[in-house]
């Protein structure tokens, strides 16, 4: 019954979404106040209906209702409760329902936090979001219905894919989707502005906080995904340039360009058309990512089970959404004013270079990701494009970006001169180069380490210096100041972490028996024993490894090799000991003889690996600080107290 209720709720949601998508938009075009004011109630109605459907599916999982095909395919009675909830988005159909739920959340948030905007604008934005919802609801109801029944009802479900039975599943997809879907708000604002024919500063001011929040979620989601891969996959890697990873990175890169470009549009009225294009592109890349993951077009670990019909639907949806928005752009954006004057050397021009570099990087990642498919489509063979390509192409683009970051922070709007910065920057530059060189010389020379450290220190020193200087001066400092510096520092920390890990990590792949020791640097790893343990829904071989540093025991690690009854592939659970200076990573392989006396195991010493997560968290914090800036809080407070902002 509940399941049917959920299904009906979705159908009703489709109808509401359709109304939400059409009427307010028509109302804005015809100045019909009544239709425009349907926007907010429709958004709230949709949120309630989609949430009902989502709750119904979650309920079906909790109650182990295996008469629902999706539940039977992704759960079983022995699945721990936490994963039974997260399994709602463990498969294609449910993850689309998650997408819809989060889209409804964003839409209703726009409905609530938009009192300071004219009704016509709000109507247009909510309409566009409604149209997107309509598309996804149609997709779900026609090709990917999570409420489909299964007869005869099996006694036991198949089980959630063991790779997903990890705390990461509980937060990574929701965070990531909050980011993907969040860019639809920036997109909606851009489309609303184009439709109104008013690409002005106000639009940029309104859409900036929404874009920032979406960016924060996406950054956090990508970082979580990376961390999860690191802890779960067992081979010590954290970024693989896998097509699905790239599908999340591309909107992030464009999103970063967008938040910087919005700054220019808001402050100086420049780059209007470009910012609109970036907003359209960010969401388009989100949609493209959805297509790539679900259509079976690319070879990836993450891809959902693919189905050509689904692929065709999403492709048509993509064509309609992106095609019409780019057509609208071509039609309306050509006649915008250029904005205030801008010198060759100015904050604007530096932020322009930020856009250029990020967009070229996105294009490079897109090219590399799609190239195998393109070559295959042209019948020119099958080739692979992997990390060596992406690293070769992406890193050189990031170098000038990081270099210019320091200049951009110092440059003044409208016009700035090199002389202003040259003196302090000279000493910072020398310090950065020296530190890079010294680190590389001391720990083992490599150009990569020297360069990476120099760049990281350039950003650290170049960001701390103006920050400290400003702190010394009197006067209140807005949160956005700290936000910017925190995020930029986070980038530097990330770069330093990556440089040192790549430069100095040690890996040993050994055959080891109980009692043997492996040494990596100062650390020794002794295998004590391998035992068999039972988990709630798996059987595992667990190794006990004693870790010592210079003779003192510092940790015991328990890597496991789990066998879930539902799948033939054994799952590796790596054991990690982490602190700020290094990660110790051990993973257990296969027994090498029968009965097992020797095992294949991998041991890694990864210096400064946690700096990668730290860097991402700092960027996320920076974004959150930017959103909590007084300007935005003021308008939220105003709305909550009923006073016009």
């Amino acid at each position, binding site marked *: 019954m509940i399941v049917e209720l959920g299904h009906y709720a979705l159908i009703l949601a489709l109808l509401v979404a359709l109304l939400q998508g059409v009427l307010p938009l028509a109302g804005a075009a015809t100045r019909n106040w009544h239709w425009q004011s349907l926007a907010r109630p429709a958004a709230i109605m949709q949120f309630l209906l989609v949430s009902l459907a989502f709750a119904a599916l979650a309920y079906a999982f909790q109650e182990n209702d295996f008469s629902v095909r999706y539940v039977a395919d992704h759960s079983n009675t022995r699945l721990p409760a936490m994963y039974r909830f997260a399994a709602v988005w463990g498969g294609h159909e449910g993850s689309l329902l998650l997408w819809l739920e989060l889209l409804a959340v964003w839409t209703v948030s726009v409905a609530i936090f938009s009192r300071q905007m004219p009704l016509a604008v709000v109507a247009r934005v909510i309409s566009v979001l409604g149209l997107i919802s309509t598309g996804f609801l149609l997709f779900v109801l026609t090709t990917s219905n999570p409420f489909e029944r299964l007869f005869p009802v099996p006694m036991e479900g198949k089980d959630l894919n063991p790779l997903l039975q990890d705390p990461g599943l509980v937060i990574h997809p929701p965070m990531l989707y909050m980011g993907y879907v969040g860019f639809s708000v920036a997109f909606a604002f851009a489309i609303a502005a184009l439709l109104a024919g008013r690409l002005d500063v106000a639009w940029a001011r309104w859409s900036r906080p929404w874009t920032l929040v979406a960016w924060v979620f996406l950054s956090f989601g990508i970082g979580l995904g990376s961390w999860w891969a690191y802890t779960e996959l067992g081979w010590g890697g954290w970024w693989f340039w896998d097509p699905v990873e790239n599908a999340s990175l591309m909107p992030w890169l464009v999103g970063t360009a967008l938040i910087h470009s919005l700054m220019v549009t808001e402050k100086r009225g420049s780059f209007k058309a470009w910012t609109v294009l970036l907003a359209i592109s960010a969401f388009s890349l989100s949609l493209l990512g959805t297509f790539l993951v679900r259509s*079976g077009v690319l070879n990836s670990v993450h891809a959902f089970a693919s189905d050509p019909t689904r692929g065709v639907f999403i492709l048509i949806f*993509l064509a309609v959404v992106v095609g019409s928005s780019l057509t609208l*752009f*071509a039609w309306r954006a050509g006649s915008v004013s250029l904005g205030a004057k801008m010198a060759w050397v100015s904050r604007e021009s530096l932020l322009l270079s930020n856009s250029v570099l990020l967009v070229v990087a996105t294009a490079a990642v897109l090219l590399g990701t799609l190239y195998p498919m393109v070559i*295959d489509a042209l019948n020119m063979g099958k080739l692979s494009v992997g990390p060596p390509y992406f690293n070769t192409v992406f890193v050189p683009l990031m170098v000038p970006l990081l270099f210019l970051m320091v200049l951009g922070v110092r440059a003044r709007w409208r016009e700035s001169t090199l002389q202003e910065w040259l003196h302090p920057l000279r000493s910072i530059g020398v310090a950065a180069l020296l530190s890079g060189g010294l680190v590389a010389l001391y720990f083992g020379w490599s150009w990569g380490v020297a360069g990476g450290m120099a760049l990281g220190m350039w950003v650290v020193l170049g960001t701390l210096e103006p920050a400290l200087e400003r702190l010394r001066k009197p006067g209140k400092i807005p949160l956005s100041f700290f936000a910017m510096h925190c995020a930029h520092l986070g980038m530097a920390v990330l770069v330093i972490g990556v440089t040192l890990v790549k430069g100095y990590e040690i890996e040993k792949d050994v055959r080891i028996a109980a009692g043997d020791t492996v040494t990596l640097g100062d650390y020794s790893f002794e295998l004590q024993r391998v035992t068999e343990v039972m988990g709630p829904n798996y059987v595992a071989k667990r190794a006990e490894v004693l870790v010592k540093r210079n003779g003192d025991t510092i940790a015991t690690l328990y890597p496991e090799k789990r066998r879930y009854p539902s799948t033939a592939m054994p799952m590796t659970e790596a054991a990690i000991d982490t602190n700020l200076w290094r990660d110790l990573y051990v993973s257990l392989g*296969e027994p090498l*003889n029968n009965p097992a*006396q*020797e095992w294949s195991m991998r041991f890694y010493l990864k210096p400064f690996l946690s700096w990668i997560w730290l860097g991402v968290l700092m960027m996320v914090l920076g974004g959150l600080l930017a959103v909590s800036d007084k300007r935005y809080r003021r308008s939220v407070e105003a709305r909550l107290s009923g006073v016009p902002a």
Partner: protein
Amino acid sequence: MKKIILVPLALFVVLLAFLAVGLRRDPHEIPSPLVNRPAPAFSLHTLQSGQSLFSPEAMRGKVWMLNVWATWCGACQEEHPVLVSFAREGLVPLVGLSYKEVQASDEPAGKPLSPEDKLAMARMRSQAWLRAKGDPYSLVAMDLDGRVGIDYGVYGVPETYVIDKNGVIRYKQIGAVTPALLEQKIRPLIQELNRS
């Protein structure tokens, strides 16, 4: 400045076209570079005990098929009845390549098996299996360490090759041979090769 505003749309249309074509392709299917190349030479012991070795040259002048299999391979078990009934027709000789029958986990601790012991174990297991499930092979070559498999680009047993009278590989199937595949691809190919 006006024309340039159409560029994003134009690029998108091109992208869309590629995606549409890409939907019909299977990115997991990897064609073998060995097709239309001479079958790599090898010289291996066979299932029958005794010292006689088998080489692909022995099959010159005949169209034949090489089927890579092992008793530990699940998909091979599914494919086996299809091969047995196909072999009964006697259209072409079917040579089996027993691929890594003896695995590392079969070896007792600390004492790797000698090649002779491995061969004996492999023979015993394969013979028992074929006795139970039917033997479609005119003979079986024993690739114990997988080197021949590597030369033939084997990465997912079962795999099947169709080789022509001059010892050139004409077709490679990765994965189980199905009756449909036999009808649509393999039979016509064999007939065509037999005519030349």
